[in-house]
């Protein structure tokens, strides 16, 4: 074979090799450049249900999944609120790329400064606290796991839902998904001082209104707002009524400010019987057991707040009872 023909064949072989390498390079480049990104998915919350008390740390472990690998996750969100909304609640996120935790402010208008999990920082708004020192993050395979250490404040009482969201480095988002429910329980408690009213001796058909010196202080020593109720236990042989009668007496009550001093005519001035106490407990409203000239009543009393309870007794018109009678007034509290 002539020499130039060999040369041409040699050249053709090299061109073929170069072309094959080029094609492989091209395919490799485009396969990596145009590979489909997996949208991240939210995982679970553990525990997904339960309750805790205010000012008591609660730990939640949330998981976020990205099939492209957990390091592909950018933001891992955790929201605890009644609905999907960032105001007045726990709304935090973990930035995987910067390894920092953030908490939304009360008004849902901005994020706190970021702090690393394990750092000795506590981020808080008016409703929750996030303890960064006890918050941990780990990743493995496709799953990012965040263990949040959250303390709910008394202002955040009630039943809440828990939501997750995740965004990856391409800004692909899972969207919000409900993954649990949590209740921040209210502690209901009141103190009563004094717990007696000694009227002493009186006669039939008399009206006795409690003097300021005898007023009963009722203090909400729970951890949230409370509304008071009044009921009573009749003494043997007497019956509570709206008007006095044969073995029938009237006992009325008013909740007001400690500084208020209701007078005889201040009881039952709305409907003539709205302040009367019966065995069946009745919830205070602005009218029921309410003193018109007071700015305070027995409803939605804030924690660590005191109300005065004034009582008024109307003796029976007729009674065969000559001995001391003991009427037990029951004061209860409930969630407003």
């Amino acid at each position: 074979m002539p020499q130039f023909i060999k040369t041409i064949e040699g050249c053709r072989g090299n061109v073929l090799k170069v072309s094959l390498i080029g094609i492989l390079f091209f395919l490799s480049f485009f396969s990596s450049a145009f590979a489909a990104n997996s949208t991240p998915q939210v995982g679970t919350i553990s525990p997904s249900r339960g309750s805790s008390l205010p000012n008591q740390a609660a730990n939640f472990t949330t998981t976020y999944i990205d099939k492209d690998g957990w390091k592909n996750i950018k933001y891992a969100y955790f929201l605890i609120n009644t609905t999907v909304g960032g105001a007045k609640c726990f709304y935090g996120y973990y930035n995987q790329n910067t390894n920092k935790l953030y908490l939304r402010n009360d008004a849902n208008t901005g994020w706190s400064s970021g702090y690393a999990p394990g750092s000795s920082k506590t981020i808080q708004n008016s409703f929750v606290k996030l303890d960064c020192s006890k918050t941990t993050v780990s990743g493995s395979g496709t799953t990012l796991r965040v263990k949040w250490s959250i303390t709910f404040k008394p202002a955040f009482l009630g039943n809440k839902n828990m939501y997750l969201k995740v965004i990856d480095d391409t800004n692909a988002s899972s969207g919000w998904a409900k993954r649990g429910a949590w209740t921040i329980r209210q502690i209901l408690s009141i103190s009563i001082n004094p717990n007696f009213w000694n009227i002493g001796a009186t006669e039939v058909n008399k009206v006795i209104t409690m003097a300021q010196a005898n007023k009963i202080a009722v203090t909400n020593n729970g951890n949230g707002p409370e509304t008071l109720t009044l009921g009573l236990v009749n003494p043997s042989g007497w019956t509570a009524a709206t008007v006095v009668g044969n073995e029938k007496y009237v006992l009325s009550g008013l909740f007001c400010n400690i500084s208020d001093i209701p007078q005889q005519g201040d009881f039952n001035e709305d409907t003539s019987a709205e302040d009367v106490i019966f065995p069946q407990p009745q919830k205070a409203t602005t009218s029921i057991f309410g003193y018109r000239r007071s700015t305070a009543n027995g409803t939605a009393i804030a924690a660590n707040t005191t109300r005065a309870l004034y009582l008024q007794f109307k003796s029976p018109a007729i009674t065969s009872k000559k001995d001391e009678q003991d009427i037990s007034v029951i004061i209860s509290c409930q969630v407003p």
Partner: protein
Amino acid sequence: MPLLGKEVEEMSKKLLKLSMVLVVALLICYCLPKAEAAQSGSVAVKVTVTPSISVNIAETNLSFGSVAAGSTSVSTGAVTVTNDGSGVNETYSLSLGDPAGWTASQIAAGVETYILNAAFSSVASGISWDVTKHALSTTPVACIATKFNGDQTGVSVPYNGIRNLWFQFKAPTATAVTTEQNIAVTITVQAG
């Protein structure tokens, strides 16, 4: 199907039912709202109603009319006595005030001496009018079961209770008084 197979099947069904009941019970427990028990306390209101005792006497005048010396007369009607106090039981005491010139006796009528007997009874008939039980004196005497009693007594009369008080008058055997005499009978009341 072999007997053992049937038993196994029955047992499986029972277990399934039991499991379902258990699951439903757990779901109910889980779904119930976790309400905190409302806290409460009590205030002891202590009061003593002092009894108010009172009696109403409907007829304030009772006339025997003209009677002969040494005669015995029973009132033509009774005086209605009602407990109108504050609700407590009442026990009555009876006494009288002598008219001028006459003296009440608890034994026998005599000169210027008379007997006025009283008895609580629904009707006059049947009253013994035994002076030891019925004769009034100027000193109040409390009613007991055997004092001033007929078919009623003045003891522990309940609120609104009505008693009928009858009188028997034994005129002096001799008297210088010829005008109308007024004998005031007083009913005093005590609780109980």
